[in-house]
């Protein structure tokens, strides 16, 4: 599909050890009626390395979308620090931030809501090009825009005929291709994809997951890939971060986190995924629901559902610490896996 793809950005990448994006003690709170506060993102520190796919998983309401949006300042963090490509962008005014915005794009779950139904696909793709300048500082000419539109349609596997049509004329999977094309228009370096395949049927989901992977191969993109489907995240990610009630409870290499989970929540989550293999024994599921982020439990935030919680867990909050190569966990009693 993307066989003819050409790299759209210069081959110069920062040294592997420097994160493309780095967040430190990021918090996002929402003020609620009656003076209550909701801690949607509750002290997250995370490095996104250039060229990696960082999967962000966790159950509904744990703060994945809020974190994803805060990382690229589509939501204003309440506190903490964000450094993008060596530059502190935490408090940059919108005007100064704008040239950097081109390099950080977002793709959402709802492929329909994010496309203006009254605009043709061609216009939707041209829009960001008209707003922003080329990397060199010149404006996009009409000819350059036309060439770019065709190039983008090729990249996402839709023909240029699509440019003349309207969003409602496309299926959910095709609309997601259009959203991806639009996110790519300005040759970003980082894409935050928030549940980009969750609304799609498996057969179409596989097409879009492959598209994400191909684009990453060809364009050297970096993704933060938010999803609640662990199998999808496993397929696409180089590293996985597991969130629970606003915090990262485990982060590390995909295989380590998903196959040798150190945190009891990660373990329960991986075991709860229904496997398409009949007759497999499934362990007793985790009891109870995720507590409210308004009154999160003291001590370890998972202790109300944790099957191995001790007294200490009710009072002392475990910090995220490294327990093995490429694996960090926030638990007093992490699992150790014999190899």
């Amino acid at each position: 599909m993307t066989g003819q793809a050409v790299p759209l950005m210069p081959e110069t990448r920062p040294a592997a050890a420097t994160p493309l994006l780095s967040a430190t003690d990021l918090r996002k709170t929402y003020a609620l009626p009656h003076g209550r506060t909701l801690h949607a993102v509750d002290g997250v520190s995370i490095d996104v390395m250039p060229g990696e796919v960082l999967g962000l998983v966790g159950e509904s309401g744990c703060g994945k979308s809020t974190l994803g949006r805060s990382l690229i300042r589509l939501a204003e963090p309440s506190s903490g620090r964000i450094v993008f490509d060596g530059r502190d962008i935490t408090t940059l005014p919108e005007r100064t931030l704008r040239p950097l915005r081109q390099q950080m794009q977002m793709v959402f779950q709802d492929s329909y809501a994010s496309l203006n139904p009254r605009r043709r696909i061609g216009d939707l793709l041209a829009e960001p090009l008209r707003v922003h300048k080329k990397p060199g500082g010149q404006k996009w000419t009409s000819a350059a825009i036309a060439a770019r539109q065709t190039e983008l349609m090729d990249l996402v596997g839709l023909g240029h005929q699509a440019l003349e049509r309207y969003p409602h004329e496309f299926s959910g999977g095709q609309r997601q291709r259009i959203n991806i094309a639009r996110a790519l228009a300005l040759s970003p370096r980082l894409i935050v994809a928030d549940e980009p395949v969750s609304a799609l049927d498996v057969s179409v989901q596989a097409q879009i997951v492959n598209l994400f992977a191909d684009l990453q191969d060809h364009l050297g993109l970096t993704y933060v890939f938010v999803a609640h489907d662990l199998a999808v995240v496993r397929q696409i990610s180089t590293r996985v971060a597991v969130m629970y009630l606003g915090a990262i409870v485990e982060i590390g290499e995909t295989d380590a986190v998903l196959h040798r989970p150190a945190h009891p929540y990660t373990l329960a989550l991986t075991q709860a995924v229904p496997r398409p293999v009949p007759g497999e024994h499934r362990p007793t599921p985790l009891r109870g629901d995720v507590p409210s982020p308004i009154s999160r439990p003291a001590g370890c935030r998972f202790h109300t559902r944790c099957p191995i919680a001790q007294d200490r867990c009710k009072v002392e909050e475990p910090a995220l610490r490294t327990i093995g190569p490429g694996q960090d966990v926030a638990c007093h009693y992490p699992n150790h896996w014999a190899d």
Partner: protein
Amino acid sequence: MPSNAPAPLLDVRELSVSFRSRGRMIPVVERVSFTLHEGEILGLVGESGSGKSVTAMALMGLIDTPGVQISGSVLFQGHELVGMGQRQLRRLRGSRIAMIFQDPMTAFTPVYTVGWQIDEQILAHERVSRKQARARTITLLGDMGVPDPARTADSYPHQLSGGMRQRAMIAMALSCNPALLIADEPTTALDVTVQAQILDLMRNLRTTYGSAVLLITHDMGVVAETCDNTFVLYSGRMAETGPTSAVFARPGHPYTAALLASIPPMDGPRPHRLPAIAGLPPAPLERPAGCAFAPRCSYAHAACLPAPPPALVRVGTAHQAACVLPLEGTPLTPSVMGRDAA
């Protein structure tokens, strides 16, 4: 059927449903047949728009869209439901057949407590006092794994979490001990850890309540873990049906095989690319005269194209697929299953 086999609880024969739109009839569900026995869990799977919900609504007599055409036969405990009067159907639905939906908010009225609403359901079908009804409600909620069921009964729907509401809805559905429970995507809106709890509960229904379950889902993982038998719908037509273990281990229809192959694996090596199925299922009016899967099938050949669509043929014990390959003696080879989008 051998004469000593028990008659099925539900026997659906050639059920078709068409809707009228702009002067044309749109054949949404075409000649679907299946049986469901007492205590059995049957999974009805298919992609969005394949006709799963319409099938379920039709067999419960719940479609009243003007101009709808429903044909075929639905025998429930020996009674024909197609063409049955609405009053009789309603009585059946309240007592012998129950249905639960993806969104539990639709099952409950926001202005009454969930306990009150379950009590009402019991009172409508049984001569018991409100107090006795409430005791039953609390037992039912407890059976569904609701902690502190008495307090939960006194809660309003919006005060409960999604998982708790889903349990309350299942409790309400089971309040009259239905012989058949139809569950349309009952866990799709839930998180996996809560989904696992609800699926556990569904599996236990047959032992504790003896109910048969028709479980509608698009999640092959949910089917594998929960259902005795599986029925795959593709674009309104039956693609495959059989024991879940056989359908997953030896799919007889290329669509089932390709669908299974396109699911990213949770265990074992990660494929570099997922074997995706190119294209999309056809809309009802664009459905080919022959096999509906032909435009996406890597095995499609001349025999697949002419009308009528391939009939179900036996591919194993109680296992059938609607494909020409088994009769031609061509086995499915995993390597050519599923091409990627062009």
